[in-house]
């Protein structure tokens, strides 16, 4: 079943076309990556799909619901971990999770159970009572993802989940994201080539808002005749310039 369907999705700001007639299908349970350098339009695409900003043209359907007309329905089954770590800095990790449970209207039992479950899933025990604002970038990202998972979303958007993290923190976060694979449809954005290759079932190469190529990592390497995604990416982007 198609979980996310983009149809000519377009966003224009005054003089830039941030996302340019993007069309693609993401299957339920798939981990799909949008790969592109800074300014390619990844965040804008996520903002439209999560109903934060309206498309200028085109539409997208999440589990069959239109982002233009049925955003209230969509909000019930999506969650986002934004590019900037969106946490409440003055609250502890536990309080942050509890806040999200409250916002989603969970009962006390369900809240306790959810916090226990996510603490285990994202190995947050050791920082549970620390102030979120005082944690390292890696821990903040983990908390941010945990907060997104609270509502048991069917579609999860991760905008540059490992931006600015060191190698170890990144590798740990990759394990966490891999563990989510299959349970929830994930659309993640990244400008790290190796991240797209390591995590995604399929990936789309984005440049200036346009989709240049969309396939499995192996498919993209085969199509370009390169042996790494990085080389393949460079070739695809250069050829598009001509």
């Amino acid at each position: 079943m198609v979980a996310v369907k983009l149809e000519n999705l377009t966003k224009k700001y005054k003089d830039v076309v941030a996302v340019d007639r993007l069309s693609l299908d993401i299957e339920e349970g798939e981990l799909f990556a949008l790969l592109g350098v800074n300014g390619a339009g990844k965040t804008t695409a996520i903002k439209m799909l999560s109903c934060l900003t309206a498309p200028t043209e085109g539409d997208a359907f999440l589990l069959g619901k239109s982002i233009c007309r049925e955003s209230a329905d969509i909000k019930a089954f999506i969650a986002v971990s934004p590019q900037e770590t969106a946490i409440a800095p003055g609250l502890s990790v536990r309080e942050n999770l509890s806040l999200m449970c409250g916002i989603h209207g969970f009962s006390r039992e369900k809240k306790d159970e959810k916090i226990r479950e996510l603490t285990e899933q994202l190995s947050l025990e050791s920082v549970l009572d620390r102030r979120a604002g005082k944690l390292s970038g890696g821990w903040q990202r983990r908390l941010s993802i945990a907060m997104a998972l609270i509502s048991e979303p069917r579609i999860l958007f991760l905008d540059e989940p490992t931006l600015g993290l060191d190698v170890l923190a990144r590798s740990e976060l990759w394990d966490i994201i891999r563990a989510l694979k299959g349970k929830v449809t994930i659309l993640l954005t990244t400008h790290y080539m190796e991240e797209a290759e390591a995590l995604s079932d399929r990936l789309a190469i984005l440049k200036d808002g346009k989709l240049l190529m969309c396939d499995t990592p192996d498919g993209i390497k085969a199509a370009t005749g390169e042996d790494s995604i990085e080389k393949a990416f460079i070739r695809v982007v250069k050829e598009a310039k001509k």
Partner: protein
Amino acid sequence: MRTLTFGGRNFKEILRDPLNLCFLFGFPIVLLLLLSAIQANIPVSLFEIEQLSPGIAVFGLSFMTLFAATLIAKDRQSSFMHRLYTTPMTPADFILGYTLPLLPIALAEGVVCFAFALILGLKLSINVLLSLIFLLPVALLYIAIGLLCGSVLSDKQVGGICGALLTNLSAWLSGIWFDLDLVGGVFKKIAYALPFVHAVEMERAVLVGNFPAALPHLWWVLGYAAATLIAAILLFLHQMKKQ
């Protein structure tokens, strides 16, 4: 329920900042002490405790603007607001969630201010209690200004505009520090067209039990509070849509 959860978060976020606590409780106490000391040496009727304490109580509320605006601006910039926009939170949840927790904080500020004034010689009467209650519309006004600023400014701009400009403006134009009649003219006209001096004079009247004199000032304060709150809500909604 959502409003309360979110309001609780905002309450904690504000009170857990030690700098905020300093502003909130330290500032009025220091000002009261300082001006009373001056008063003891060079008596000025403006700085008698019955005149001074309502002024300081009102002035202290200008920090509500700073707190609200800083919190909102930071939430907008850190994408925390984006996360919340993708949840079932409604605009009312946001606006009430940012406004309500500041009311008890404002009240606490008033309590500290008047309690300290009692130590400095203010006479205890039911009017002190009523003065606290009349602080609430003033608090609402300052919170609404905070909502307004937080919806459009970055957290750095908030520091400059709400922290420096507004506190100065509300100090100069309030008649707390000097008698506006001494300056007169356009300055006085401007001051009386703005709500700050009305808030102070209302509090002064209530503290001496002169309610008929307080009422016209109350309308000024309520009028400005309502207008600012409506503007803030519209701006907030506009921001939310524009995202």
